[in-house]
């Protein structure tokens, strides 16, 4: 099988409009989550991570007419635009576009936007992006709950290995919406403070919005590239809205990814986990990582920086892994104060510099899905 590399990346989030700005804020331990009181989003106050529409429009208006694109489209197009602009030498005419989103332009269901109703369909969102960049191939949309962002990397990798495409761009995005806020609130799954992954007083998630894009190539065209060593998805086959108590699906997905990577668990230098800060998710992950003999490995969740950005989260978290490997640094698992899981993990309690080579990224989501992907720093 041809190796596939993530060679470049961009993040558009409340923590900045470039990957570098985002990393700078992670180093400082700054959260993008704020208290929000906005009746267009929820009839209750909540903590969430929101991108300033004004700041976004300011950036976006320099590349296209903001009136023609929804907020999500602006975020996703801006991410790809910045990515592509860095690679004038690369041929994007045969690029495969993979779009990761759970709900796309779901706010258009409300019917007061002025955009055509059909724009709520996920393939329409992908079509708008494809046409903006004049990509030739039909985009692939992956909508597989909260694992979508990382799963999309795996999808792009497999499609590149089918040998029909030279490179691929994976773009991921989801917005903070009344639709999703109301749903998670009905599950009583929203914390009323900045979320605290794996911590004793954790009490649910915060929601956030963000977009990100990565370039996947079959050659490590940059020294900062990371290689995809292995990846796998395994369903819990247990419950549609709650994680399995034993974390069996997550364990199996990690084992299968290790199998493809052809490495043992000892080789893993750190884990970028899902860590939503719900009672059940974090507990399930702790059990799974214990069973896998990974409890001693440094582990962090980024949810207290970004909130849960749904279809974007696992792509952003994979990008952060790339930068962590590149800079040999681990970010503080923000929101962690005191162990709150029955099987203690080695949570990163501060920013730290450390030689790093191989990382594991995991995600889990509704529908019982789990996903694991292993990255290795390029040696070039």
């Amino acid at each position, binding site marked *: *099988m041809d190796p596939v590399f993530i060679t470049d990346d961009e993040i558009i989030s409340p923590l900045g409009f470039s990957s570098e700005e985002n990393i700078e804020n992670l180093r400082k331990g700054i959260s993008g989550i704020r208290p929000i009181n906005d*009746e267009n989003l929820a*009839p209750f106050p909540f903590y969430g991570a929101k991108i300033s529409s004004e700041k976004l429009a300011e950036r976006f208006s320099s590349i296209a007419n903001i009136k023609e694109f929804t907020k999500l489209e602006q975020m996703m197009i801006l991410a790809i635009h910045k990515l592509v602009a860095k690679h004038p030498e690369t041929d994007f005419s045969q690029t495969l576009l993979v779009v990761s989103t*759970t*709900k*796309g332009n*779901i706010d258009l*269901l*409300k019917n007061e936007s002025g955009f055509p109703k059909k724009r*709520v*369909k*996920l*393939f329409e969102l*992908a*079509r708008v992006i494809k046409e903006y960049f004049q990509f030739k191939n*039909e985009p*692939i*949309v*992956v*909508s*597989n*709950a909260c694992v979508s962002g990382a*799963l999309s990397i795996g*999808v792009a990798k*497999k*499609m590149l*290995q*089918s040998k*029909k495409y030279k490179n691929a761009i994976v773009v991921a995005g989801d917005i903070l919406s*009344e*639709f999703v806020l*109301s*749903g*998670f*609130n*009905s*599950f009583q799954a929203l914390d009323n403070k900045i979320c605290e992954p794996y911590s004793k007083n954790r009490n649910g998630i915060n929601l956030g919005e963000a977009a990100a894009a990565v370039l996947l190539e079959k050659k490590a065209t940059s020294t900062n590239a990371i290689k995809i060593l292995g990846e*796998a*998805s*395994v*369903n*819990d*086959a*247990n*419950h*549609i*809205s709650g994680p399995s108590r034993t974390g*069996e*699906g997550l364990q*199996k997905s990690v084992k*299968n990814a290790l199998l*493809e990577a052809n490495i043992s668990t000892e080789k893993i230098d750190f884990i970028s986990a899902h860590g939503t800060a719900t009672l059940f998710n974090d507990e399930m992950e702790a059990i799974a990582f214990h069973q896998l003999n990974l409890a001693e490995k440094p582990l962090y969740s980024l949810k207290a920086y970004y909130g849960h950005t749904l279809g974007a989260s696992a792509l952003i978290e994979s990008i952060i892994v790339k930068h962590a490997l590149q800079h040999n640094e681990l970010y503080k698992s923000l929101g962690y104060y005191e162990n709150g899981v029955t099987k203690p993990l080695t949570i990163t309690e501060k920013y730290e510099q450390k030689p790093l080579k191989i990382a594991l990224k995991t995600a889990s*989501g*509704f*529908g*019982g*899905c789990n996903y694991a992907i292993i990255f290795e720093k390029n040696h070039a």
Partner: protein
Amino acid sequence: MKENYYITDFVKITDQQLYHRDKKVVEEVNGTLKSLLKKSYKSLEISYPKFHKMDSLSKLGFIAVEFLKLEQEFPSDTALVFQNSESSLHTDYQHQQTIQNKEAYFPSPAVFVYTLPNIVMGELAIRHQLQSENTFFIQEKFNAEYLTDYVQELFNSKKASAAISGWIDLNNEGYNVFLAFVSKNGTLPFTKENLENIFYNK
């Protein structure tokens, strides 16, 4: 060496009819989707209380795969790789109705959980105990090329030894389901052309 994979079995549901391969097994002329699902469920003579809690997209997937199950065992690593064009919009509209009006704001977890297209795969994983690869794609139209390329890569990389794959779409105007069981057994090769021939009834 690459092993050969075949379209071992398939089920189609559309226009008030359910076909198991070439044989029409359920028909509900002048009925509704609801009555077709009910009749199909009854004809299977099974008891699965969770079925009644599912949204229509999950029920369609459940029924189709029950018919596939009649003639084979699914290996536990049977991948689920589905496509549709509407995602979960049919249920999204229901959730939206519960929040549209501030005076009547009553979102329900039982509805919200079905506002993701991959939930049907979660239901199938539970029903058939498939601890396996799941991927849900959204395409404007049935894209047999992407499906076969992707599923073939799952086979090539030994991530799955069989797959249930195809199209499962539902909106307020209608529904269209074509799910195939793909494995090493059979005679009809697992190719884009063969999937298209079945899907478009050529």
